[in-house]
């Protein structure tokens, strides 16, 4: 089976540039990240708000430091968490787990690729029917991107 992906520029903030990818389409088509936003705007608005606000603050002020991301094999994920704890955000004055996962790939403190994601319903991503595909795709794309840079076929200019 043959697929191709196009890298799509999303947004350049003061400290971080964000990209996404379009699978089997040109960059004028909807990227994985745009699809993620479209799908969760209504059903998971508060959790999506949390993630997008996070992205913007990292982009504007702190940069994409490693400790701000959760490690998902080769890829990374948002929101981050401790090693054995769920990430939390505030809902009705209570710490509530934000189980909405956005998979991404942190290339450096200044370049991040945003992919897709969904609500994680199992402890392991590989066991969750909703995020499993996104997790696997994110890791595949992350390896592809890393290889592209390692081979010198792509560079940050």
């Amino acid at each position, binding site marked *: 089976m043959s697929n191709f992906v*196009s*890298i*799509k*520029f999303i947004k350049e903030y003061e400290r971080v540039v964000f990209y996404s990818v379009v699978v089997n389409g040109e960059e004028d088509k909807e990227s994985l990240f745009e699809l993620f936003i479209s799908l969760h705007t209504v059903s998971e608005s508060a959790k999506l*708000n949390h993630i997008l606000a996070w992205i*913007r603050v990292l982009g504007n002020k702190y940069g994409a430091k490693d*400790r701000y991301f959760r490690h998902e094999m080769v890829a990374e994920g948002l929101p981050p968490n401790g090693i054995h704890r769920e990430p939390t955000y*505030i809902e009705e004055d209570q710490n509530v787990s934000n189980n909405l996962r956005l998979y991404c790939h942190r290339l450096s403190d200044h370049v991040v690729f945003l992919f897709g994601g969904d609500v994680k319903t199992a402890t392991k991503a590989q066991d969750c029917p909703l995020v499993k595909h996104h997790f696997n795709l994110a890791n595949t794309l992350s390896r592809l991107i890393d290889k592209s840079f390692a081979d010198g076929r*792509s560079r940050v200019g």
Partner: protein
Amino acid sequence: MMITGIFFMTKILKYTISMKVSRRKANQEKKGLLEVNMIDQWLEQHGDPTIERLVKKNLAISDKIAAILESKEMKASDLATLMGKQKSEISKWLSGQHTFTTKTIVAIEAALDADIIFVEPLRQNVYFTVHSRIGSSSLAPDEVFEESVSVGEYVSA
């Protein structure tokens, strides 16, 4: 900062995936179309200011803790040992996603012997008008003094 690259093919797992990178330099005239500012637009349209403030505060606190650790040449594991906590707990604090209680912040401050948060001092504004004496004693009391244009504000230290 942008990513440039060439079209190439690579085999990953069962798929053949090729990656094409947007040639942003070649499409400068279409910049407005290429940049997708969905993050800011979504936050302006759907965002809850409370969530954004919480994200900023949490990140600011975690960043301050990280800065203090660095200034003292300490690692996260050192803080864990100092406070009798698991390293995973410290990692969660440093991820910027944890919503701290005042009690926890104070405990960290005590352990590090450094302030993480400050409460701004109260401002006391005292408004005054300067009057200067003019004319002769035959003037009515309300005509004796000329109201100065100087109106000052005193701010206590």
